[in-house]
């Protein structure tokens, strides 16, 4: 299988910006809205080339969600852009009623998710958004792992019908997915084959899992690494196929332990194939200011935390 390495780092939000710009060129119905964060969301190129299809909303996220729902009536495909916190928690009821329940084709694009937002601290580091969004009936939830995959996911959303949440982040991060690697919404992507444990990861944590896998290999543990970029709808078949082989699972996400990827995997396993699961996630706490690396370490999201979780879960196998 491919060996995953990187020579360059880039923020996933830049992948979104490039993907959106490409979509703008290929699909005249794609429109974009931003709540005073064009620079942070990397929406500048789209705005520059398609000023008539770009709507500056100001610092008014609730209105932005309603506008987006309205723009779909008339066939537009709106992509909203703001921080993940303001894309979800701040506007949950607007998303619930005007977008999800009304089944509007709105793409909610959310940057600066998780603790890797860094120095701005806990007010902005949302760790509950995956849970909130996946609970909404009919909502697709995508958490891509690097710049290339964020770009691919953005482009894929242009051809997807229905409400969707796309979560990405702020920090510069390894680019380890090939730019031409196929991306299919709802289809898990197995990155490394293994037989002792299944590691399911999303977002920035996929790279952490790849680093953990190398450390585990040195200890003689064969870990399978699967990128669950689409948390909903979850690729149940891929999860079961892997765990039926390995007999246990570790989930990794930059999110609360409650309500995220780990919950989704545990639910599938408890219903269809009971097996030990350990979760690498933020343990029911808010974040704080710091550098992304410091925060990943302090909140238990470093590769060594994944290694420990793997050793623990393997020990629980019957």
């Amino acid at each position, binding site marked *: 299988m491919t060996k995953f390495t990187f020579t360059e780092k880039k923020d996933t939000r830049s992948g979104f910006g490039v993907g959106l710009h490409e979509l703008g060129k290929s699909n005249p119905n794609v*429109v974009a809205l931003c709540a005073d964060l064009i620079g942070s969301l990397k929406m500048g190129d789209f705005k520059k080339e398609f000023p008539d299809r770009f709507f500056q909303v100001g610092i*008014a996220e*609730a209105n932005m969600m309603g506008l987006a729902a*309205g723009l779909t*009536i*008339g066939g*537009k495909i709106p992509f909203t852009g703001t921080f993940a916190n303001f894309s979800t928690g701040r506007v949950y009821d607007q998303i619930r009623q005007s977008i999800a*329940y*009304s089944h509007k084709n709105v793409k909610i694009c959310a940057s600066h998710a998780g603790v890797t937002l860094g120095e701005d601290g806990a007010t902005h580091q949302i760790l509950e958004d995956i849970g909130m969004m996946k609970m909404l009936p009919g909502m697709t939830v995508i958490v891509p792992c690097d710049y290339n995959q964020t770009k691919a996911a953005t482009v894929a959303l242009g051809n997807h019908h229905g409400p969707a949440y796309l979560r990405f982040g702020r920090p510069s991060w390894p680019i380890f997915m090939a730019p031409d690697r196929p991306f299919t919404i709802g289809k898990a992507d197995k990155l490394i084959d293994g037989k002792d444990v299944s590691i399911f990861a999303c977002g920035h944590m996929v790279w952490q899992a790849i680093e953990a896998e190398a450390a585990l290999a040195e200890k003689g543990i064969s870990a399978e690494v699967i990128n669950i970029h689409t948390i909903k709808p979850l690729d149940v078949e891929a999860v079961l196929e892997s765990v039926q082989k390995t007999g246990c699972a570790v989930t990794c996400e930059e999110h609360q332990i409650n309500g995220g990827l780990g919950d989704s995997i545990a639910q599938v396993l408890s219903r269809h194939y009971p097996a030990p699961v350990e979760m690498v996630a933020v343990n029911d706490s808010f974040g704080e200011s710091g550098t992304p690396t410091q925060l990943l370490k302090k909140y238990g999201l470093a590769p060594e935390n994944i290694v420990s979780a793997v050793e623990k879960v393997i020990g629980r196998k019957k």
Partner: protein
Amino acid sequence: MSQPNLNQLEKLASQIRRDIVRMVHACQSGHPGGSLGCADYFVALYFHILKRNPGFSMDGTGEDIFFLSNGHISPVWYATLARAGYFDEKELATFRQLNSRLQGHPATHEGLPGIRVASGSLGQGLSVAIGAAQAKKLNNDNSLVYVLMGDGEQQEGQVWEAAMYAPHHKVDNLIATIDYNGQQIDGPVKDIMDLRDLKAKWEAFGWEVLEFNGNNMKEVVAGLERAKTFTGRGKPVVNLMRTEMGYGVDFMMHSHKWHGVAPNDEQLEKALAQLEETLGDY
């Protein structure tokens, strides 16, 4: 149907008021007060003002479209849609019942023709209407977008986010209307959370503000016709429409008490005695 005259519009309004009271009575829940107060507006809108295509399409391309933001007055909207031919009047009997397309608050989920977005959680409809108006502009579709809000609803912050946005973006193919009846669930609006000078507020946000009496058919038609003449002039239009909650049924008027209460059998009879059956009950 050819354009109805004033007398025919008034007859439609009377029948729709009967429909409202009967619907709310049948399921012993729902919101008769605001529905009765807005019956003249709905009739004028659907039978005189809106440029409508036959049938229903979600996109509403090439036709005027309407959004109801204060979704709790769904009875008047459903009755109007049925009487305007969007679905069979008999379906009004299913209002608020299990497996009905006529949900307590309007929804798209069950595919009821005429509804383009769910509403009920207040404050959201103006934003949606503005988005739809901007989509029309992008599509070079010169038809108009209408939206109705409640006056109590003006207490929601999102209304003012949207109010600030539309003039900034010159959304001038939009006619908003506020049902200015001065009542909300807990009591008179001025006691619950005074809106003070609502006209001055909307003017300060950059809207063309018009006023008319919403319980006089001639004035409603004239008011909405006048509002149309202000479209296409670089700013959005809002009508402050004075109505009486419960209009048409004497014991439901001059109070907030019938905002969300259903009449009992005896009250139903008393109400129906005041509302002429002009087109046949459903």
